[in-house]
Structure formats: C-alpha cells, structure tokens
C-alpha cells in the first residue's frame, strides 16, 4: 500500500507542489522558533553564577576629577571607605562599564600556544567585586593586594574560557598571551560562569582583570551591595551624598534587579512577537492544509467510491488519506531537514549543535502532528461518504 501511495503522490507531484512547499516553509519557520526556544531554554537552565538582588550600580561622570594618579587613588579609597561606613551598605567595588546587565560590552582575544580564542569578555574590576556579586571560585583564588606588584599580570578566567583553552586540565598558574601574544598573563583563579547578559544568554568566554591605579581615571561605576533594609529613603540619602562628593557630576543609581528585568525583556519581547507571527502563519498553513485536503476529498469522490467498491472499508479510505498527507509531509521534511542540518554543519552562528538537533526533532514532530490533525477530519469525512454516492457523482 505504501508503495502504491508513493506512486500516486509521485504521479500527482504537480498538484501536490503547493502542499509540499507550504509544509516546507512551515517547517523552516518552526525550526527557527524551536532553535531560539531551545537555545534560550538551555541558557536559562544554567546557573546564574552570581547574586544581583541587592546590588545597586552608581554611575557618575568623572570629568572634574584630579588627573594625578595619587590624588585619584586617595579620592577613591576615601569614597569607598565612606560608603562602607554607611550601615545600609555591605560591600563596595569599582568596575568597568560592562558589569552584569549593563548595556556595554568589551571584548578581546587571548592566545595560547599560537591558538587564538576570540570574543572574550574583558572585565576590569576591583578586589571587592567578588564579594559584591558573591561569585564562586572553582579553582585558585580571587585578586589580592599583592597582585598589584606581581611580575606577570594576574587574571581570573571563567569556566567557559578555561574549558576552551585547557579542557579538563588545570588552568591555575598557567600563563596565557594577550590578543597579540606580546604580554603574558598569569591565571590565578577560575570562577563559575556568570550570565551577565541576562537569563537567556550564555556567559561566553570571560576574563577578569584587576582594576589598578592606572585605570582609575576611566572608572565611572561603583557597585554596592546593600543590606535588606536599604529603602527609597536611603537611596535618596545616598544620592545626596554622591552629589555633594562629586560636585557638578550627574549621578545615576540603578537597581540591578530592574536592569535584569529590562535585559530579559529585550530577549523575551522580540521572541514573543516572533512566536505570535509564527503562530499566525501556522494557523494559516493549517487552514490551508485543511482546505486542500478537504478539496481533494471532494475532488476524489469518484476515486473514493471506486476504492470502496473494490474492497476498501471506510476506515481504510480514511487511513489512506491521512497516510498520503503524512507521506507528503515526509517529503517536505526531508528537504527541510537538509536545509536545517546545514546550520550545525557549517556552525553558522555561535550556537551549540545540540540546539539545532533538538529544534529539528521538535519541528519534525510538530509538523507531523499538524498535518495529522489537519488530515484527520477530512479523512474521517471521506470514510463516511457512501460508496454509491461517490460513484454517482463523477
């Protein structure tokens, strides 16, 4: 029977072209939707790697500050001490603009044995950064004051970068080159990955660099961890304190939990829009498939009647029609999968192959279910056509 249906479909390939291309397009759209969803889901299930709940970011412009390194150093340590002295503040650190959930990114590359590792997020942070975020060390140690005077520059890398460079081996104590491989940097520790771009994006490669006095002139961000009783009143006090400290400077205080929400929204909203559009497309395609199948059954009443006359039961007629639709779907899916499999093969985007493979399987199941659902009712209807009527009508 299967072979017979293949013949029938092959001989009708021209009539079936529309059906086939509709399914192909739907498959590709659904594949894209599932790829995004799988990617986001995989990232979402990974641990965050840090605590953002009571962290605030204070942003200021530093144009008025002294240019002299020593006076800057004094200014910053005084500021840090005054902040820490406030009972509502638990931890204070300085950081480059690309702290978690901030919109800025800085990336570089590192070299190890001539091999280049691209897209490494480069964070410049002061020693207390780890305490503010409660970052977990997996190996080695975090920055300490003596790192200021060490021979090779000390760096801390995250787990992803460590695995990329060293695999299962140990990284602590190893030297790696900067992007031109001119200077060597010494890995002193490995931290757990932190998802700085929101819940739905991977941590990526990351490298932490100790914020030294040379960088103070570029520092514009203070990150503080506040105590649970820090409220709006405290926030306005803090704001006043900052404006009196940095005269003529614009001060901005942001809560990391809010920054996280808006960061996540940037991912979720387009995805929801995409899913709604895809949903409408699928509804359209479903109606189209349903219509085509319905139309075919009416057009094929003579054939249905004939099959009934020569020995097909009502059930076997509906089985045949559903099977035909599924065979057609299979033909489209074979072509669709050929396109889809190019993504992992050519690694078009920096996304793990597993994402595409899972999305492909899900999309195939989805399309089969869709076609099955659309074919079921017309098929049932065909079974209930009286054989004599069907023959009569040709």
């Amino acid at each position: 029977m299967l072979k017979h249906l293949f013949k029938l479909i092959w001989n009708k390939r021209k009539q079936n072209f529309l059906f086939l291309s509709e399914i192909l397009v739907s498959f590709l759209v659904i594949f894209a939707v599932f790829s995004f969803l799988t990617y986001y889901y995989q990232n979402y299930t990974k641990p965050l790697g840090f605590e953002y709940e009571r962290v605030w970011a204070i942003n200021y412009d530093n144009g008025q500050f002294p240019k002299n390194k020593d006076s800057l150093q004094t200014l910053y340590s005084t500021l840090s001490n005054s902040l820490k002295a406030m009972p509502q503040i638990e931890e204070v650190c300085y950081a480059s603009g690309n702290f978690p959930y901030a919109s800025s990114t800085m990336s570089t590359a590192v070299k190890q044995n001539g091999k280049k590792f691209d897209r490494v997020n480069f964070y410049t942070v002061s020693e207390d950064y780890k305490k503010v975020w409660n970052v977990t060390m997996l190996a080695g140690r975090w920055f300490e004051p003596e790192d200021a005077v060490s021979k090779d520059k000390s760096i801390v890398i995250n787990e992803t970068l460590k695995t990329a460079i060293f695999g299962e081996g140990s990284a602590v104590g190893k030297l790696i080159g900067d992007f031109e491989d001119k200077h060597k940097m010494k890995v002193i520790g490995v931290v757990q990955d932190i998802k700085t771009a929101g819940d739905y994006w991977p941590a990526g490669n990351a490298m932490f660099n100790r914020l030294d006095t040379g960088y103070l002139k570029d520092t514009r961000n203070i990150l503080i961890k506040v105590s649970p009783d820090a409220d709006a009143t405290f926030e306005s006090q803090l704001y006043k304190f900052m404006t009196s400290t940095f005269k003529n400077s614009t001060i901005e205080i942001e809560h990391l939990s809010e920054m996280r929400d808006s960061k996540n929204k940037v991912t979720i909203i387009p995805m929801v829009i995409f899913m709604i559009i895809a949903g409408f497309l699928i509804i359209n395609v479903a109606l189209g498939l349903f219509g085509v199948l319905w139309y075919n059954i009416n057009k094929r009443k003579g054939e249905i009647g004939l099959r009934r006359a020569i020995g097909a039961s009502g059930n076997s007629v509906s089985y045949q029609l559903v099977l035909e639709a599924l065979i057609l779907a299979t033909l489209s899916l074979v072509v669709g999968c050929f396109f889809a499999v190019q993504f992992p093969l050519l690694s078009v985007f920096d996304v793990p192959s597993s994402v595409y493979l899972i999305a492909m399987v899900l999309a195939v199941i989805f399309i089969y279910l869709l076609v099955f659902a659309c074919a079921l009712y017309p098929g049932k209807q065909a079974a209930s056509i009286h054989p004599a009527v069907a023959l009569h009508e040709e």
Partner: protein
Amino acid sequence: MIHLQNIEKVYRTDTVETLAINGINLNIAKGEFLSIMGPSGCGKSTLLNIMGLLDEPSKGKISIDEQDLSRFSDQQLAKFRNQKLGFIFQSYHLINDLRVLDNVELPLLYRTSSTKERKMLASAALEKVGLSNRLKHFPTQLSGGQRQRVAIARAIVGNPQIILADEPTGNLDSAMGNEIMEILINLNRNEGTTIVMVTHDENMANKTHRLVRLFDGSQVQ
C-alpha cells in the same frame, strides 16, 4: 447465486422522498448472464448498487453465495466485495493519476498479495482484454473502448464469481461496444462468471441469457 427478496429503496432528502425501486424479487443462478433494461430513472443503477453491496436496501433481504449480508460490518462487506464481486461502470472510474497496470492492480492492494504476484495477475488480466501493449499508459492516453477494457481487467483481476456492469457500453460506439460484449460473453462462458449487466441496447441484451425489465422501480418482465 444472488437472491433478492422484496427489495425496496427509498431515497429521502429534506424535501422529497423518491421510491427508486419497489418490491423486487430476483434470483440469479450461478453462471447466469442477466441483463437489466428500462427507461432512464427507473432504478437500474440503484438495483445494481444494492446487489453490489454499495447501497443498503430500505426494505427486503439480499443474500449472495448463500450468505446473509444484513449483519455484515462495513469491514466485512468491503472484504466480501473485494473477493466475490467485480464492478464495471459506464464512466470507467479509472484513477487518472495511475498507469494502466497500477489501475488494474488496485483490487489486489486490498488483499494480502506480493508485488510480484500483483504484477503478474494484472498483466494476465490485461492480456485477456487485449491491452498487453498499454501497461505504462495513463488512462487519459487511451480511447474510450480501451479504458473500458482496462476497467474490465480491473474487475476480473481478483477472479470474482460475480461481475456487475452498469451500462458498460453506454459511452462507446457499436463496434467498440461489441468488443466489450464479446469479452464479457467469453468471461461468462469460459470462467463461469455470473454477470449482471444494465444496458439500454436491445442487441446487447439479446446476447445474454435472461432479460429483466424495470419500469418505475418495479419489475415488469
């Protein structure tokens, strides 16, 4: 072979009720070649459909080959049609998207049979109707007479005991009609197939064993 007892068929639509056939009693013996004649709309096709188990009578009893068919399920009826009956229609009812050979194989698809066996039986059936040289054609590439011969091959491929033919020569000129008639007569004579044929043509009817005339749903002769 076929026993019809007090068969009545009423077609009901929302507005009208048509009594298509009324009180038909008919016994057809094994190996008989029977023709049915009557004016258009008198219920010939309806009667043939009832004999072919394609339609249920509103009243009356039908048995074929000593089997009471009133309690048969849809599935059992389908199997019974497949094994015992062959159909020939005025408008051939070939599937235009299938080649001649595949059209003839169709009834065998609803039985357990191998591809090889199907091909062999279908080729043999086509040889009997003289179409061995048209196996790979599509029905639209054939003449009316050839198409009807394909339909006959399809009807006999499963080796049925009964063939029901509804105006098999209705769409053909007399030469082609005679050819078809020749095939049916030979089938009846050589294989002992019971044949019931509806026709409008007295000449055709005269070549059969017995003629039944219908008028307004009732048997008049």
